[in-house]
């Protein structure tokens, strides 16, 4: 893997590639009588692109929401291996604490701060790294002022990587869909995450836009070295860019392995193409 020399490394983890980064074990999530996730287990290695695929309603987004703390699972646990060698349970933490441990995410339906500019959105990605001192902010004191510049420099690296220069001062609500998706990726990347969770970054895009987005995701992975968990529907994209694939169906893991292995898995073929297609 070639990692470009950045003044500010965008990868928040110094773990060498291939080491276990995130472990999901026996994760169960029920909404009343509906079981969204049933004893899901998976393991994400650092420095990899790990795809989660599955038919609609398979529980992919629920899994991501459990990891990032938006849902509290009924059972099981999610453990993040931090840089310092600690194992942190994410399952009992609120989303803002999970974010502080270096887990960043994007959303399936764009959830940008629509009235804010691209810059402001990305500066919010720096929130966990910034001090919030109300008095210093109101008086525009040196520390508050300098802090804005320091973190702006990190944001500029992200803007550079994702080629968002032309949109810095535009309110994101006015931008085209594809650009908004990229801003969302950038906002998450500005957090200098140890793990980046992307929920369908290519949803609703045409082939060309998908190619662009796939390229940006690969850049984030290869140039910045960030570990990525990715939910995606388009099998071609998944097969092309991911190192490892976990397949969910009806809240259960039905396949796990390299893209080639998963393609061969009869249960996966059945889930996607229907019973009888495997033979």
């Amino acid at each position, binding site marked *: 893997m070639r990692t470009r020399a950045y003044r500010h490394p965008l990868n928040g983890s110094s773990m060498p590639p291939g080491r276990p980064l995130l472990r999901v074990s026996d994760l169960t999530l029920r909404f009343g009588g509906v079981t969204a996730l049933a004893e899901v287990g998976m393991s994400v290695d650092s420095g990899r692109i790990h795809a989660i695929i599955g038919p609609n309603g398979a529980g992919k987004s629920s899994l991501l929401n459990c990891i*990032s703390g938006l849902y509290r699972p009924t059972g099981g646990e999610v453990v993040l291996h931090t840089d310092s060698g600690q194992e942190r349970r994410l399952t009992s933490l609120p*989303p803002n604490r999970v974010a502080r441990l270096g887990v960043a995410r994007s959303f399936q339906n764009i*959830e940008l701060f629509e*009235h804010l500019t691209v810059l402001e959105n990305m500066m919010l990605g720096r929130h966990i790294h910034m001090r919030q001192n109300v008095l210093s902010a109101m008086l525009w004191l040196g520390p508050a002022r300098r802090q804005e510049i320091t973190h702006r420099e990190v944001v500029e690296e992200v803007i550079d990587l994702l080629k968002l220069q032309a949109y810095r001062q535009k309110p994101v609500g006015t931008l085209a869909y594809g650009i908004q998706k990229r801003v969302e990726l950038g906002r998450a990347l500005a957090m200098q995450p140890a793990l980046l969770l992307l929920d369908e970054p290519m949803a609703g895009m045409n082939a060309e836009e998908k190619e662009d987005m796939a390229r940006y995701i690969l850049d984030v992975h290869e140039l910045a070295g960030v570990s990525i968990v990715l939910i995606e529907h388009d099998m071609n994209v998944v097969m092309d860019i991911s190192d490892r694939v976990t397949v969910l169906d009806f809240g259960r893991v039905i396949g796990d392995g390299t893209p080639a292995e998963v393609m061969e898995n009869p249960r996966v073929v059945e889930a996607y193409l229907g019973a009888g297609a495997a033979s």
Partner: protein
Amino acid sequence: MPAVETGRHHTSYRSEQRLWHTRPQIVRMALLAVAAAVLPFVLDNYWLAIANTALIAAIGAIGLNILVGYTGQISLGQGGFLAVGAFTTAILTDRAGVPAPLSILAAVVLTAAVGVIVGLPALRLKGLYLAIATLASQMVIIFIVRRWGFLTEGQGFVDVSRLEVFGFRIERTTFEQQWYVILLVITILVALTATNLFRTSVGRSFMAVRDQDIAASAMGVNLTRTKLTAFALSNAYVGLAGALLAHYTEIISWEKFTIDVSITYLAMIIVGGMGSVAGAVYGAVFITLLPVVVRMLADVLGGVAPVLSRQLPAFEHAAFGLVIIVFLIFEPRGLNRIWQRIKDYFGFWPFRY
């Protein structure tokens, strides 16, 4: 960002951080400063009193806009919060003999604390439900102010002695002029600190909570802390406005802080522009001037249509309602946006865009 600024390229982040970049901006601010400085010498006491009322309203509206416009937490409790500030300073100055600056500070702190308590429901409630919760706080505060005899010593009102700051006492003859200077300086400080807030991390987290609270928490924003900070900060400004109102009017009673006041302040930020410090000031000036203008119209047209002056309060209310409806339909982003469009128009002239 207004379109006029396109084509401006900064060579350092510091230059981009400045509040005013272009020559027209600086000239406008200078003209505004000159106008503000000349005002007390050209206006008579009647108009200066209106200016002073508008300045106090501007402080309160900036405070309310921090909560409603910037953080998206709707509040119908403005009147009650103003009352907390006003009664705190009035009672401390009038009865305990606390020096005015200290009692105003106490009012600010206490109103902020009340804001945190009233803000607690905001951790669970949004939108209309929060509006009802803050409405409840308005009712509770006014009920306490009305019925707790201790506050007004059973009189129903509190007299506040003439403002005295470190031996400097406001003169009766130049009352309005001196107050104008004091209020102008405080309003400028309030506007500046509020503006600063929203170009830093703290203010951005407020706006993030307004636009997408789930995404904000996924970015590491602590929703509980952010909302309560917004309530406290907003109320600190509102408490300041209430305290100044008490010292300026020198007599306060619960009637000055009813639900009407809450709605009037909401109207100010709707008309001025939600989520804009300048907008809050425009709105405060506009809504303060509105009844004055209606009265002038009634005087002028009194000969032709005597019904105007006979039914003056009705027409004032009608004008108020009409203004809000017109703004909501034609320019929901308020006077601030209209002003921006005017600047754009002349910036691009003779082209359309």
